[in-house]
């Protein structure tokens, strides 16, 4: 059909989107349009979907059974924090930083250089989606000289729970892989916190952090493992982690945040 054949010539001007060239510059929700003062239905539901995913990520239960199977035949130890349940966990960060009475006997001292802990943190979805890939990527790069503790799966965990776990295992370093607080754009982001000479009472400034490990434009498992292994070598060489461990690899250092 040529324009001449068109029985209904356009009488309305074509509505161009003046925001088109602005949208590329920001992930912010700009140019949403309006009806009266309100949001149109589609962007309103888009927001609700993003929030729903973030909420589900916070409240889901990490699937440690599948995780343990995927990591087999490596030795796995499951523990939980003193928080007990999700509602308590969210209100009592102090309890999320301590092991439950039942969990403590599961951890035995050994001649370990590095302990890997996978904690659900604030996003079970992050653990379900990223943890296996990240652990495999770390193990593939870690020097065979280093002795690795059994992998610990920790429920209702805050970052600092790794201190008590690392202490109980007698590990020189603990790396806590933990679900980060979900945002609206990414609900399954994993973070890694590395602490030298872990023991209860370590401050956030004594850790190094690698954050934003996820599949939506974030750090890949391989890139995260690369950074972590570099940090592990440096930490063992310098006998410390934290703000004094300068990060030549442009890793984000510190920030305890909501975890």
């Amino acid at each position, binding site marked *: 059909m040529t324009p001449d054949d068109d029985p209904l010539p356009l009488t309305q001007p074509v509505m161009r989107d003046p925001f088109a060239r602005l949208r590329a510059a*920001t992930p*912010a929700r*700009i140019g949403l349009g309006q009806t009266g*003062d309100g949001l149109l239905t589609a962007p309103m539901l888009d927001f609700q979907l993003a929030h729903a995913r973030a909420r589900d990520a916070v409240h889901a239960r990490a699937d440690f059974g599948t995780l343990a199977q995927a990591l087999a035949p490596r030795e796995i130890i499951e523990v939980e924090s003193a928080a007990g349940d999700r509602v308590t966990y*969210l209100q009592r*960060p102090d309890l999320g930083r301590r092991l439950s009475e039942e969990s403590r006997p599961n951890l035995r001292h050994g001649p370990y250089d590095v302990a890997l802990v996978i904690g659900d943190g604030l996003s079970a979805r992050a653990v379900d989606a990223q943890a296996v890939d990240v652990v495999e990527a770390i193990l593939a790069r870690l020097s065979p000289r280093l002795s690795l503790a059994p992998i610990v799966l920790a429920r209702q965990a805050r970052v600092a729970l790794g201190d008590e776990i690392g202490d109980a295992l007698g590990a020189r370093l603990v790396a806590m892989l933990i679900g980060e*607080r979900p*945002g*609206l754009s990414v609900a399954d982001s994993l973070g890694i916190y590395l602490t030298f000479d872990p023991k209860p009472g370590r401050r956030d400034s004594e850790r190094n952090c690698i954050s934003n490990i996820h599949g939506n434009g974030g750090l890949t498992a391989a890139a995260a493992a690369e950074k972590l292994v570099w940090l592990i070598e440096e930490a063992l060489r310098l006998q410390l982690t934290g703000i004094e461990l300068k990060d030549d690899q442009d890793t984000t250092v510190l920030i305890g945040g909501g975890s």
Partner: protein
Amino acid sequence: MPQFHTTLGSTRYTFASLGELLARASPHRSGDQLAGVAASSAEQRVAARYALADLPLKTFLSDALIPYETDEVTRLIVDTHDLRAFQPVAHLTVGAFRDWLLSDAATGPVLAALAPGLTPEMVAAVSKLMRNQDLIAVARKIRVEVAFRNSLGQAGVLASRLQPNHPVDDLAGIVAATLDGLLMGAGDAVIGVNPATDNVPNTLRLLDVLEDLRVRLDIPTQTCVLTHVTNTLEIIRRGGPVDLVFQSIAGTEAANRGFGVNLAVLTEAREAALSLKRGTIGTNVMYFETGQGSALSADAHHGLDQQTVEARAYAVARHFKPLLINTVVGFIGPEYLYNGKEIIRAGLEDHVCGKLLGLPMGVDVCYTNHAEADQDDMDTLAMLLGVAGATFLIGVPGADDTMLNYQSLSFHDILAVRTALGLQPAPEFARWLAGQGVSDTEGRVRALTNSGAMERLIGSGASRHDA
């Protein structure tokens, strides 16, 4: 140490200190549980309120919650207390003070004259005896007018901070979000960016782009990059375009130390900003943010409840005559304010306490994804704050801050509050909106359905920072 007590039926409740009495009387919130200062039962909470209601207001002048000798915020509160202004209520108990505040005798001008006579502990105490309805009824009597490049705080005005944050401080992205907000009628309180990278060169870069946009579009408002006060001081030395000095503050010396500030550096920064003489119609040059729980999270709360410590932050703020101050009420997370109910209550408390102390109080109505809250709760709080006469609210595109990863209000939400309650933007800004065709002849912001206004503003605004 003084003892406070009350007897309910056959049970005698005692409270070992004034701080303990205030904490036990405080409405339930997770942060006070976490701190171990909350009432242990619902009945104990009400018992504390009975005891608090009988307490003479004067007690707060002699019983410092944090010692004068060890805390400069206490010294500021005590040393600047205006005994003459306090006289009209000096004979009242906390309970009688509540009754008086709600009475017809307590008019706006009377409350404005009273403000220098009130301490933060007095207003925190009386707020604990108030229901949400009371928090609103008292707050709405009080207007605190301030000015810089426009005027804020008048009856019938609800201003807005336009918060155009970007995850990596991309200049074109920040301009894009700013234009989005301007087209939605936001930005009269301030166009204020939280930098993703908080250092001097980056802040200067952001300030320059905001200044350029403001000047080019001739917007009667002020801009701000919310960096640390010491960075702003350095930027002023380098000749950067600083309208407002921003700083996060808290209610104890130790918590402020955690923020890397004290009263001396705030004084220095205010004088530096005043020396620039950039305000065209006023000299309020400070912008503060606060929030319940910040002192506890810095382990600097001295065993006090989080709402009382928060009110003490307002004593710091009022000393510096700010243009803007807001509580970032739900930002801190569910370990301090667990759910929508606690966030709504805290927002109303913070607002009325700031107003009673003479501040042009605003609120960032917000929550995080691990709090038991959603946009319905934000709608409720925003509307209640509109009724309560809040000076300004904060808006981000689509309510989603993609840099700080939390949810605030959208620009739409602020328009909805204005429309429902018949409120207007700051008068100078409202005229600019009309001149740009952003608002129509009835004052309604409908730029997104007016392609002419939209294309004109986007065309001129984005020209130098094309994506």
